[in-house]
């Protein structure tokens, strides 16, 4: 038999081997107690905690562990414990150190042999302790050894647990770092896209895809409120959603928006695990999470992710991740809107040309640079399109926009890389020319622009022709700022438009003219308010009712009156239309003036007709401006005036020049038709002198053609003029049009006109334009 120290070592080895395989701390104490009892062939063994509580024990019936007695043994105040079935047993306790201090206690029955019957065969190997049960020195050493092994095993287990936890923590950390690395890469990609001004849709797709990838979910989408209808949500980006499904759910009412709508309405991250609410997006979604997206602090949409997986839970880390991606969307959207605002602030949204603000800013810089370097001053061209409004009104605003875009393109083509073109008004453009040597170089560019703009613009399958007027100004005056230079160019442009020279270089005198014009404009506005306009009426007579050889006109011969506008200027006296009507047209004042003329003339005529026999009413002829004819509501206005004045419509003649008929022909025909439907008559003034085309005689509804004064002037001395006049009169007869000859000033003219069959005429031969009192005297004093 091996010596007892070897037995002790053997028992310890058994004990250690048994404890090594124990998986957890709770089982460790129980196994230690059992193994200690086995090693010492004892009935009882126990592991006590430092406070004396029994962690594990073996040898007592269930629920009958004498904890107090065992604690006393551990304290050293007792060395035996009563054990049911074994009597009072000697007990020994040794401390356990380490992280879980306590005691290891063993109690063993005394008296008799361990195993009945063995003593006969094993006397030689039997210890005396077997007889009395007391623990030998070696057994005490064994118990101490087991306590130490238990301590070391606990320490090892705790260390392994800590290492396992650390390893798990490291794994978690590594995983977290990997996730964060991927997150960083995704965010960096998004930031790069934003910085590089990638198209917003691409940025949003990058964010959506990144969110889906990092969260490991099945679908991701981005919904924005419909800017046109905030009650609807638009799917602006998605991934993982089948294309057909995405199209079907592209636009949803907010009530059916599920978590996306909730996040928007509540402005907070929401999680939805009710599959019924997720059906609109993907029918098999189990759960979804949505975070709000902001633009300049206001909620505009939400970023949504969803999963088909049962049991998918969105933990705090997932929520933070989605919130971060939603923030990226917010940044991208805000940035895009900011850029849009910046672009909008400094560029014209239609043409892409610089805005007025940007143009002035650049002009200021160029002026400063030139002045500082002593270099030639930059030049400014002010380009105004002619008849743009006609095109806009006749072909529609879409066509007008296309025209403007086309003009902008041609401007760019005429400029150098350092030049700037801007759109500063509806049909007004400015050009900044740098590096021009002087006015001639600027004029050259202006000519190039004019030539370019004269070419046809293909609009809606047709061709549109426009022209332009350009004013040129140089920033040579060191005291001028950018605004002043542009103003000078504008004045020069106005001058060019007035003189129809197409291009003018600014001269200081123009400024005075412009100032005067502005004054006239201002006075015109006041004239309307103050009633400074007056009408003169020139009688229209039946030529065959005038006594032969005489020019005396009686009231009976007067069949009508033409109303002629005059301005009773407080300083300048009575002004003819030529002195203010163009200004009124440019200033947009002609329409109210025309209306006043019509009202005044109709009222006067109605009053005079009330004093005449009913079978011989006077007609009143009112000149209509192009602007007035272009008003879509013009027939209605005329009808109202007639109604208010009481003048029968057949007594009203609206006179217009041939040139008015050339533009916006369809609309013009419609208005003329509407007017004639009211039995108002239409007269064409200066027939044969303008864009005369016999074709439009058939097309345009008219009643009267007025033979131009220029034809009447030479009718008596020029056979050709006489022949033309006769032809016109006969043409009128053939077309059942009344002919009125204008500007009759001599008897011979009257005779020729009578010979040609002209029915009516007017001119100084019969009467000058009369004021209302003179008209009354004419009409009623002679029995008319």
């Amino acid at each position: 038999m091996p010596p007892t120290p070897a037995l002790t070592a053997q028992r310890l080895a058994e004990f250690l081997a048994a404890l090594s395989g124990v998986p957890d701390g709770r089982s460790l104490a129980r196994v230690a107690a059992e193994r200690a009892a086995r090693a010492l062939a004892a009935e009882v063994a126990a592991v006590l905690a430092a406070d004396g509580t029994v962690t594990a024990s073996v040898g007592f019936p269930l629920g009958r562990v004498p904890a107090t007695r065992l604690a006393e043994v551990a304290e050293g105040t007792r060395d035996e414990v009563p054990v049911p079935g074994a009597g009072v047993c000697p007990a020994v306790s040794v401390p356990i150190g380490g992280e879980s201090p306590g005691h290891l206690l063993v109690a063993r029955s005394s008296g008799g042999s361990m195993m009945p019957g063995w003593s006969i065969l094993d006397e030689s190997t039997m210890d005396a302790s077997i007889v009395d049960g007391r623990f030998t020195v070696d057994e005490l050493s064994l118990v101490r050894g087991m306590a130490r092994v238990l301590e070391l095993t606990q320490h090892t287990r705790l260390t392994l647990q800590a290492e396992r936890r650390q390893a798990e923590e490291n794994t978690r950390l590594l995983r977290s770092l990997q996730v964060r690395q991927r997150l960083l890469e995704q965010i960096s990609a998004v930031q790069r896209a934003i910085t590089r001004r990638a198209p917003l849709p691409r940025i949003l797709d990058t964010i959506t895809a990144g969110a889906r990838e990092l969260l490991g979910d099945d679908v991701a989408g981005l919904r924005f409120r419909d800017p046109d209808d905030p009650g609807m949500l638009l799917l602006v980006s998605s991934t993982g959603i089948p294309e057909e499904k995405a199209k079907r759910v592209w636009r949803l009412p907010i009530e059916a928006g599920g978590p996306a709508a909730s996040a928007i309405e509540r402005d907070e991250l929401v999680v939805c695990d009710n599959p019924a609410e997720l059906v609109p997006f993907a029918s098999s979604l189990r759960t979804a999470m949505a975070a709000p997206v902001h633009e300049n602090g206001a909620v505009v949409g939400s970023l949504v992710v969803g999963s088909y997986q049962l049991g998918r839970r969105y933990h705090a880390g997932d929520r933070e991740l989605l919130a971060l991606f939603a923030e990226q969307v917010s940044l991208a959207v805000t940035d895009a809107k900011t850029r849009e605002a910046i672009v909008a602030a400094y560029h014209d949204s239609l043409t892409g040309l610089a805005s007025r603000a940007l143009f002035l800013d650049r002009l200021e810089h160029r002026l400063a640079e030139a002045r500082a370097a002593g270099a030639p001053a930059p030049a400014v061209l002010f380009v105004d399109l002619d008849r743009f409004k006609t095109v806009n009104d006749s072909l529609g605003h879409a066509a007008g926009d296309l025209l403007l875009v086309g003009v902008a393109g041609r401007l760019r083509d005429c400029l150098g890389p350092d030049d700037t073109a801007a759109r500063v008004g509806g049909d007004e453009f400015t050009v900044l020319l740098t590096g021009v040597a002087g006015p001639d170089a600027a004029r050259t560019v202006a000519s190039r622009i004019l030539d370019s703009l004269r070419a046809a613009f293909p609009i809606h399958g047709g061709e549109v022709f426009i022209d332009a007027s350009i004013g040129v100004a140089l920033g040579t005056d060191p005291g001028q700022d950018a605004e002043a230079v542009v103003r000078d160019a504008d004045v020069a442009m106005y001058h060019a438009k007035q003189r129809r020279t197409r291009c003018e270089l600014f001269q200081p005198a123009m400024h005075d003219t412009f100032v005067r014009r502005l004054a006239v404009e201002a006075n015109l506005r006041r004239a309307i308010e103050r009633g400074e306009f007056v009408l003169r009426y020139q009688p229209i007579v039946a030529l065959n009712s005038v006594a032969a050889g005489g020019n005396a006109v009686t009231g009976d011969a007067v069949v009508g009156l033409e109303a002629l506008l005059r301005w009773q200027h407080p300083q300048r006296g009575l002004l003819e239309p030529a002195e203010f009507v163009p200004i009124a047209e440019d200033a947009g004042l002609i329409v109210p003036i025309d209306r006043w003329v019509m009202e005044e003339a109709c009222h006067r005529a109605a009053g005079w007709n009330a004093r005449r026999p009913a079978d011989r009413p006077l007609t009143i002829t009112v000149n209509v401006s192009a602007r007035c004819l272009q008003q879509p509501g013009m027939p209605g206005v005329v009808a109202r005036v007639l109604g208010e004045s009481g003048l029968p419509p057949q007594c009203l003649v609206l006179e217009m020049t041939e040139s008015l008929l050339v533009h916006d022909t369809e609309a013009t025909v419609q208005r003329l038709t509407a007017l004639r439907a009211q039995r108002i008559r239409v007269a064409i003034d200066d027939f044969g002198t303008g864009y005369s085309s016999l074709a439009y005689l058939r097309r345009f509804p008219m009643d009267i053609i007025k033979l131009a004064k220029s034809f009447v002037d030479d009718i008596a001395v020029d056979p050709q003029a006489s022949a033309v006049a006769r032809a016109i009169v006969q043409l009128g007869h053939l077309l059942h049009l009344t002919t009125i000859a204008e500007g009759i000033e001599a008897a011979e003219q009257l005779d020729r006109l009578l010979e040609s069959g002209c029915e009516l005429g007017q001119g100084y031969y019969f009467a000058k334009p009369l004021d209302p009192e003179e008209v009354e005297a004419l009409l009623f004093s002679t029995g008319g």
Partner: protein
Amino acid sequence: MDMTADTRIASPAGDEADSEYRAIARRWFGAGSARSLPAHEAGAQATRQALRGADPALLVVFCSEPLDPAGVLAGVRGVAGEQVPLIGCSTEAVITAQDEAQGVSVVALGGPGFTVRTAFAQPVSHRQRAAGARVATCALDLMAAVGAADAAAAGGATAGPDPSAPSSQPHQVLVMLTDGLAPDHEEVLAGAYGVVGASVPLIGGSASPSARRRTFHMHGQDVLEDAVVGAAIASEAPFGVGLRHGWHRVGEPMSVTHSVNGDVLTLDDRPALRTYLERLDAPPEAYTDPEVFKKFANIRPLGVDRRGGADVRDVSSTKYYRQGWLSCNGEVPEGGLVWLMAGDERSVLAAAGDAVKDARDDLDGVPPLGFLAFDCASRRKLLKESGTREEIRLMVGQAGEAPLVGMYTWGEIARTRGIHGYHNQTLVVLAIG
């Protein structure tokens, strides 16, 4: 009539030739057997023989013939009634005074001074500890029942038990029958010990397969497989336990360098099986032929070092023969020491009578009512037929006039001191006083 003297009383059945019985005026222990009868009739006959008095407290049935155990149980119940606590199991052979290895044996005890509680657990496989704990709860129930009865007797029906008061039935034992085909019997015992601790001796054995080559257990009205059954017996008279095996250590010990429960992989850091055979100078065929090895190892157990002796372990199992490991029922702790154990027919036979004598002596002079014997089946193989008959003769001779009945087991249970209780190649005898 002198109640404590051995008084032979005529069997109520008048059948003195086929049964041995012994009855004290009040308490009694009876044994019966039957052979070559149909199952129901065998159970009935053996029970009729065993019931030697009134108030049977416990029936224990051992069945070795290829009989339907349900039929046997029905026959037992048909005679004893439905209420008597009953445990039983299969065995490859029964131990009776009539030297009849095959048959049905029924043990009955009864009369005043006995209280019995039984329990079973099923399945046992993969939950041995829990099964042992479950069965041991009947011992707690028993203690409570005895305590309640004592309290009622002392203070009336409403009085509670007084742990400090002496018990009317202070002697208790838990008889356990485990399944010899299930592994890790030590875990079953550990589970039981975890419940009862040292308060109750554990006695019994593992059921060995009957002629049907399967094990079964009986409890109450049921036949069970993969089970363990137990009967906790409280008695006013003592119990005695004898345990002998007849083996002794030889040579130097070997270190168990790697083992898992009862499977020994290496001894002294070398393959266990080869090391074992080399130490015993085994014939060459034992290294290559598992049947030769089995026969060789059957009478050459190992002894696990214990305080004051060695637990015997039968390592003749060929379960891991091809892996070169030794395997046995019962723990061989890693890190411990094992001895080669030697013995022969003489020492094994001597152990048989000594075991019964030890059990009888353990009664402290109280005459035994009867003996229950749990004998390792490997001892039967070693002794062979003639030796087995001699063993039984020696046992019965020591039993005197008290009936002795038992079974051959595949592992024996005897825990009276300390924590260890599982044995191999051992004879365990329980004397009922």
